[in-house]
């Protein structure tokens, strides 16, 4: 029987990225996927007539441009089109818009508060300083602070150097920033409730935390540190939906000679004498390889696919306690036409932007209270977009696809499974909130797909449907991600690596975990590195 150089488990964007870089180094790689389609949570699904849904991830910013370039993703059909701004609809009938154009953004903010409009520059510089600090570490392995290996020492010295270079006051600020809540952080700059509410959303997206929870300021950064063509903080649409990202990476993988197998779910990772030697598929087939790389989240990898006896008990315990909590759902809608939002001026560019329907910090926090009680938010935080206003390929002309990311939404309702009635009621909550601001919206709905964390877990395989494969809090970041001592993509089992979003630098369609893991694997195999360097901001 054939023995591959490497098996990558899971054809999500990180698995595919990892596989592509390994294949480019000349390894014989097979990537196995349980579903009959590839992409994991970066997919375009044809779920209704001529509509294509980005039914999990829906926008793109974090995807590292270095990887995009190295894999020549444009030659494999990927095009990212940026979109600008966001809007916060208000209960009083007004709205707060944020715009790509700096001066327009200023004037809009000044409509609410000249203080806030002027404070924005300082806020922006302070946030950018943190972005600049973290961006540098995205495309490199987090150093192990307990290691004396030259590579770790060098990297620690580099981080230390970058930190010291900030100067005393900013070092304090940085430590505070990494541990404070997004609400506290915004309070330091702004006075207007709706402006703070608008900005706080990025601090809680994808986490089971509220805007007042410590650590959410960092999550805000996680949504700001991406870029589109050098515009740090910008977001864009993948033309054709998020599946275009996965398809392009898969194209690069196949062009490098890689093999993709769908409907090949992994039942067990086969371990012999403490070393991974292959995988046993759900259908009973076995595939053998010298290296096994799991793109699944850390819980699914080690709790579901490895025999308990093969893991050190301390490690096993840590994996069990890894925080990966379902906190968000999605409602994906096919529309017969463009809904109108009477609050907005006709032809406003804000139709193309992120739309939100919560206008105060109190409502943001109350949405979280419902989740703590094991229910979905009655007044949820929705990140809604109509990508088809920008992308002509996802729906027939004049028709639209609407993507609603909804927070909060628990993995289980008060500790038990969701019922169908509850799932429908969740979808209705979302539709009603939008309809409050768009009278013709409901009549335009042709089809809606409602996805709870449980649905996402069942289909995609991510534990609790957590979009980041684990909370982005300090105890689970950098050298702590996913497990202290195992933050460099290796596991306690020889030949078994991790490359999913549970690893540094975390979730989002970034492809950095997959790429960083490939670099480590190639180094272990003494193969030439194919993974690009960070472009660097300076």
């Amino acid at each position: 029987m054939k023995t591959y150089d490497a098996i990558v488990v899971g054809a999500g964007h990180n698995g595919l990225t990892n596989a592509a870089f390994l294949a480019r180094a000349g390894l014989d790689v097979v990537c196995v996927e349980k579903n009959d389609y590839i992409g994991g949570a970066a997919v375009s699904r044809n779920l209704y007539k001529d509509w294509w849904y980005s039914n999990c991830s829906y926008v793109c910013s974090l995807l590292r441009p270095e990887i995009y370039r190295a894999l020549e993703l444009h030659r494999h059909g990927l095009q990212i089109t940026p979109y600008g701004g966001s809007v916060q609809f208000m209960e009083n009938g007004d709205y707060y818009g944020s715009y790509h154009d700096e001066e327009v953004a200023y004037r809009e903010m000044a409509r609410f508060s000249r203080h806030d409009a002027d404070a924005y520059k300082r806020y922006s510089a302070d946030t950018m300083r943190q972005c600049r600090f973290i961006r540098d570490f995205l495309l490199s392995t987090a150093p192990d602070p307990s290691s004396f290996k030259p590579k770790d020492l060098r990297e620690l010295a580099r981080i230390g150097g970058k930190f010291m270079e900030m100067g005393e006051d900013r070092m304090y600020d940085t430590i505070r920033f990494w541990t404070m809540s997004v609400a506290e952080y915004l309070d330091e700059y702004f006075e207007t409730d709706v402006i703070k509410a608008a900005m706080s959303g990025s601090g809680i997206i994808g986490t089971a935390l509220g805007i007042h929870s410590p650590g959410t300021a960092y999550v805000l950064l996680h949504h700001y540190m991406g870029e589109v063509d050098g515009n740090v903080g910008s977001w864009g649409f993948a033309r054709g939906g998020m599946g275009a990202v996965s398809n392009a990476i898969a194209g690069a993988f196949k062009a490098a000679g890689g093999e993709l197998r769908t409907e090949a779910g992994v039942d067990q990772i086969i371990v012999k004498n403490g070393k991974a030697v292959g995988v046993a598929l759900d259908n009973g087939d076995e595939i053998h390889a010298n290296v096994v790389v799991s793109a699944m989240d850390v819980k699914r990898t080690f709790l579901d696919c490895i025999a308990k006896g093969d893991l050190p008990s301390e490690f096993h315990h840590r994996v069990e306690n890894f925080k990966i909590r379902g906190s968000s759902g999605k409602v994906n809608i096919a529309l017969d036409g463009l809904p109108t939002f009477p609050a907005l001026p006709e032809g406003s560019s804000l139709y193309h932007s992120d739309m939100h329907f919560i206008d105060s910090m109190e409502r943001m926090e109350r949405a979280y209270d419902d989740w703590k009680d094991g229910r979905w938010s009655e007044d949820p935080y929705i990140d809604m977009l109509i990508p088809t206003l920008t992308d002509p390929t996802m729906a027939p002309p004049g028709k639209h696809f609407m993507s609603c990311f909804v927070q909060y939404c628990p993995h289980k309702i008060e500790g038990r499974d969701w019922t169908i009635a509850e799932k429908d009621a969740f979808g209705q909550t979302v539709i009603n909130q939008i309809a409050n601001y768009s009278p013709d919206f409901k009549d335009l709905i042709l089809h809606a797909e409602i996805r709870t964390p449980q649905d996402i877990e069942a289909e995609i395989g991510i534990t609790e449907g957590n979009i980041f494969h684990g909370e982005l809090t300090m105890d689970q970041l950098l050298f702590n991600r996913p497990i202290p001592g195992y933050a460099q993509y290796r596991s306690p089992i020889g030949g078994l690596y991790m490359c999913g979003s549970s690893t540094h630098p975390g979730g989002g369609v970034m492809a950095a975990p997959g790429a960083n893991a490939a670099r480590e694997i190639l180094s272990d195999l003494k193969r030439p590195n194919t993974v690009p360097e960070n472009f660097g901001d300076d």
Partner: protein
Amino acid sequence: MSNQAPVHQGRLKTPFYSRLEKLDFVNEWHQWKGYSSADSLYCSDTEYFAIRNATAVFDLTPMTKYRITGPDSLDYLNRLVTRDMAKIKPGRVAYAVWCDDQGQVIDDGTIFHIREGEYRLCSQERHFAWLQAAAIGFDVTITHETGDVAALAVQGPTSFSTLNNMGFEGLADLKPFGLKHFDFQGRELMISRTGFTGDLGYELWIEPAKAEALWDALFEAGKLHGIRAIGTTALELSRIEAGFLAAYMEFLPADETVRTGRSRSPLELGLEWLVDFKKPNFNGRRALAEEKRHGSTWQLVKLDIEGNKVAHSSYIFGQEKSNKAAIGFVTSAAWSPVCKQNIALGTVRAPRGKPGDTLWVEVYYQREMHWNRHMAKARVVDKPFWFPPRRGATPPGPY
């Protein structure tokens, strides 16, 4: 000549000005051969993506245009330009360059074979004197018609869908570098499958009196296909991605240079495929044949540069650590949003600059007032940076 405004007016307005003005939110204009032309109408980034993602409309009326007619028009053009115009049948368009007797490029442009023996020559610069001088001995009539023809570039992946909505029968069969005539409100509209963006796209040519009606019909047809008007900034970026040359960037018109050696030959611009030595005679033939025998002095290069710092105005070197003089310089540079590549066009001392060569560029960039510089590796590439399959597809897809 019609449509000529009084000289004291300052800036000319194209027949589309009234429509552009309505879509203008940022008031950023420059002049293009005497006409007001928009840099940007609302946001050049978004305008650029209209080219690559939907339908972009650019007013190219100020483009210099000449009508060439008469029994000797083919022979005349064949003498004028370096390529074989006999191969360009009616209904076809040719990209061409023309040279002085020293084989140095005066300009590049497109020649439309509108009907048997009837041509339109479009160029960046104005060459009436030169064209007339070159016509000695030929029975041709050359007419300057810049202001007599209103022209729009309609470019982007949904441009076909947009135009198809206007009911142009047979447009689907129009191949790249083809042109066809259609009826528009009882007048003749010429549509060519040409453009300056390297993407699927068309150019529309009509009499000025019908310009506004054409614009309105076009924008109505493109409403559901993401149609947007764009300015020059967005177009320029797509031009570099397509690897097209621009006068005053990649070359200077030979008749305008003061210093010796500041002009370029077609061979030096990578345009040897445009030079047909099988033709008995054309302007610059002898000098170009000589250059081909002895080698060129310069070589145009397309560069794929490492990193993400754009190599504006960079010197090009043969080695990373070199105390020797630079071997050339960058003429156009950009970060390509669609390729996610750091790209540039440049000119280097031949025989350096062959496809596959590794060169180095000294990149200067500013971060918060301070300037930095570094040497970046640059790979010489052969093909355009951006050449999507849709550009050549006939019939074109819906998007």
